[in-house]
């Protein structure tokens, strides 16, 4: 007999709705949830590899306690009681001696993040951070500087757009199924795609216009676009007059940034820049300048992202069909969101965060996420205070924080490292204890509050019982909490208990999710009234081109353009990184099917440059930066800008039990220097220069 379960994928962080078919206790088939518009049975290659993940013996099968040196791979198998006793005993000592704030928990945001946050609040530590800042901290800050609303509450109406401009948002390789399908629909109906990237990607091959921009020069391009849009009055005057604060200042500011000037900076012909401005203006307000998915490339990241958002405001493509919109929560239709454990009362925490977010030193990044790349610096410098214990929850500081060697050094100063993960990540391998989490197919999870044009809730529901001795993350944290005397904050015995408590007061029951996997608060899409109803949360209630958030903290709203640095040596390049459709960040490289598709990363290098350096296609390259080095195969190509080299993120794994990915390719994090956009919060992942030579 087949059983069908509606759930949520978790091969990446997007959480596409899925339908899982189970026969005799085994998952036999996964498809996209047919009831969800824009999904309609579709999945991406990673989603298709879910079964391969589930039955992979190379994931963590039971709790393990380290017996040898850190990273040596000597482990003993432990029961859950043994493992949590071990952790609890160490943790109690650390908290007693150094205070709760000496404990840090880093995670990739997930449905049970409110549980981890509760755990940290209960031990009186302000040091919860998410991966978000490492990916898009500056996008978040840019959105708040203009709208008073973070990027997570801003959506994109791909389906109805007439023209979309993507700045390295490689939408057809870094796949979100619904976004891809909605954009493809729009393009089938005639929507245009402009793609800007120093590298030719799959997305570039589908574009109507492609610009191989000089890496790092996006801001120059945007200043010139703004220049021409204001000069030729190509903007949506009605929208701008109603909603924008600071247009005159922007007009004055962009006077020197002509298309001819930008041509020299970007390599894009001035007449082409002008023609994009004129062309896209004709389709306003159903146009999108995509503000980015990952926004963590340069030290001026926040200003690049602001310039993109400003272009949308000028086109009036905010809260418009086919433009960008603000997501609506249940409150918009008189509904209530699912409860979260953090609603409980906690003692006030007086110490600053480890990353100093919220202090004068680092005022603007979002304290809900923190700034993860500060972790090695905070540990090594004991600034603002000593840190002693790290919990890594589905997050790998060794592969996601720039400068892995620095991170390793920092880890050596810690008394306790605990990893909660499905896979043998590099941090799991370097931990004192690994606590294996049940995979997404084996667990029920906390409610997903899906805000958007139509507020909804989704449920990840257990499809099969755990194959190995694993537990749900929220149960793991509860078990540790029970043993360190904070169990009163975790009053549930099972995930079902927790979900039922979450739904209390929402008017929905857990059974309501059975029919389709989700529930909706209302039937219609909600757009706010563009004349009077846009609920901006800036102090002025307007879109603040001149930003009170920035200026009050001592930052400029419009900084002068600083030319991009270009390496003077022939063998030196800017390192840029990105994604392939086959892999998610650092977590899928060992998946049997996905590893079969892409098993190692290559170094893309421009043909002419390679020829001068004697580098041959497929030959080995020695690559090094100021902080690390490695050996990687060359991909010699015309598809790469000559000033940069490119590699896929997430390779070069060091956990030996992840055998297929072990030592395959090079980890970009080993090469990247730990540079931060101190205004916005993102790391500058494309601001490292590397030296290459034929090995």
């Amino acid at each position: 007999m087949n059983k069908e379960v509606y759930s949520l994928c978790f091969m990446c962080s997007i959480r596409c709705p899925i339908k899982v078919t189970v026969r005799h206790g085994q998952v036999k088939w996964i498809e996209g949830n047919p009831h969800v518009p824009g999904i309609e049975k579709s999945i991406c290659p990673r989603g298709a590899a879910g079964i391969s993940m589930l039955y992979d013996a190379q994931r963590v099968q039971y709790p393990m306690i380290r017996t040898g040196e850190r990273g040596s791979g000597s482990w003993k198998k432990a029961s859950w009681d043994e493992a949590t006793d071990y952790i609890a005993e160490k943790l109690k000592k650390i908290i007693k001696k150094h205070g709760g704030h000496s404990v840090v928990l880093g995670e990739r945001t997930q449905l049970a993040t409110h549980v981890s946050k509760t755990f940290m609040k209960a031990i009186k530590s302000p040091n919860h951070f998410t991966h978000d800042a490492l990916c898009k901290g500056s996008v978040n800050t840019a959105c708040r500087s203009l709208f008073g609303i973070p990027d997570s509450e801003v959506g994109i109406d791909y389906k109805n757009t007439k023209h979309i401009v993507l700045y390295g948002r490689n939408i057809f390789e870094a796949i979100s199924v619904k976004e891809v399908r909605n954009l493809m629909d729009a393009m089938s109906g005639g929507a245009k795609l402009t793609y800007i990237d120093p590298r030719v990607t799959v997305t570039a091959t589908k574009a109507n216009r492609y610009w191989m921009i000089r890496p790092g020069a996006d801001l120059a391009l945007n200043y010139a676009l703004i220049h021409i849009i204001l000069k030729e009055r190509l903007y949506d005057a009605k929208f701008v007059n109603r909603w924008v604060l600071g247009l005159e200042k922007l007009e004055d500011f962009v006077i020197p940034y002509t298309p001819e000037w930008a041509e020299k900076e970007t390599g894009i012909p001035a007449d082409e820049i002008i023609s994009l401005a004129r062309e896209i203006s004709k389709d306003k307000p159903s146009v999108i300048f995509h503000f980015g998915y990952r926004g963590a490339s340069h030290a001026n990241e926040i200003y690049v992202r602001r310039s993109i958002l400003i272009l949308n405001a000028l086109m009036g493509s905010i809260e418009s069909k086919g433009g960008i919109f603000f997501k609506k929560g249940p409150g918009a239709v008189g509904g209530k969101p699912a409860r979260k454990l953090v609603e409980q009362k906690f003692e006030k925490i007086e110490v600053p965060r480890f990353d100093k977010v919220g202090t004068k030193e680092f005022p603007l990044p979002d304290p809900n996420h923190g700034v993860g790349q500060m972790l090695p610096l905070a540990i090594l410098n004991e600034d603002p205070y000593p840190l002693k214990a790290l919990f890594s929850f589905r997050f790998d500081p060794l592969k996601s924080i720039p400068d892995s060697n620095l991170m390793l050094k920092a880890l050596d100063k810690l008394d306790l490292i605990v990893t909660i993960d499905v896979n043998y990540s590099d941090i799991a391998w370097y931990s004192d204890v690994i606590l294996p989490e049940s995979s997404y197919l084996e667990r029920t999870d906390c409610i997903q509050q899906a805000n958007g044009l139509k507020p909804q809730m989704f449920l990840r529901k257990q499809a099969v019982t755990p194959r190995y001795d694993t537990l749900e993350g929220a149960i793991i944290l509860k078990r540790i909490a029970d043993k360190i005397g904070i169990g009163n904050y975790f009053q549930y015995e099972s995930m079902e208990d927790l979900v039922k408590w979450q739904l209390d007061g929402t008017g929905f029951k857990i059974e309501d999710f059975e029919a389709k996997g989700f529930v909706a608060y209302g039937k219609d899409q909600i757009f706010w009234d563009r004349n009077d109803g846009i609920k901006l949360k800036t102090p002025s209630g307007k879109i603040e081109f001149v930003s009170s958030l920035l200026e009050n903290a001592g930052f400029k709203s419009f900084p002068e353009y600083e030319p991009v640095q270009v390496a003077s040596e022939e063998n030196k390049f800017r390192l840029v990184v990105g994604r392939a459709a086959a892999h998610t960040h650092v977590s899928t490289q060992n998946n049997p099917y996905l590893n079969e598709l892409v098993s190692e990363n290559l170094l893309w290098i421009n043909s002419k440059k390679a020829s001068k350096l004697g580098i041959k296609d497929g030959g080995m390259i020695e690559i090094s930066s100021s902080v690390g080095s490695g050996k990687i195969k060359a991909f010699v190509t015309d598809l790469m800008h000559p000033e940069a080299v490119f590699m896929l993120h997430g390779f070069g794994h060091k956990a030996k039990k992840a055998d297929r990915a072990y030592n395959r390719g090079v980890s970009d994090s080993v090469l990247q220097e730990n540079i931060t956009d101190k205004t916005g919060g993102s790391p500058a992942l494309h601001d490292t220069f590397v030296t290459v030579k034929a090995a």
Partner: protein
Amino acid sequence: MSKYYLYQDTKKCIGCHACEVQCKSNKALPVGPKPCKIITVGPRFVGNLPKASYVFMPCFHCENPWCVAACPTGAMQKRIKDGIVFVDHEHCVGCKACVAACPWGAPQWNKEIGKVVKCDYCMGRIDDGLEPACVTICTTDCLEFGTAGELGGVRRERFAKSVASLD
């Protein structure tokens, strides 16, 4: 020919390989064999624009299949009711004659069982009224499955729209 036709709308294909992975997952195949495969040709610049082809390669289910003729045991067969070419593992001895015979590389070697596997349009699914695995989950819906007579409409419609003048 089989009575079916599997159409790939190359304009919508993004070469993501979800079809390949779902196919393998559905047939519980090990690393190695790929009954369907996307082959990327390019990208290369055509004028100012980089262009690439993402070519979908399943089995063509030929009218006179070389593989069936070459098979010494009768394992490789053509289904009478609809012309699907499939391999019956009961009779496959792993001689690879079909692999050598097929001009398009459709039969694949499964080293775990020492037998050949190939695209059979997921005939079990078709008999259940479903579509092949690859078509069902295609990320962009660029794959369509139907009887040969029904298909081809997409290209006609798109071409008509592109040349239409509403003046």
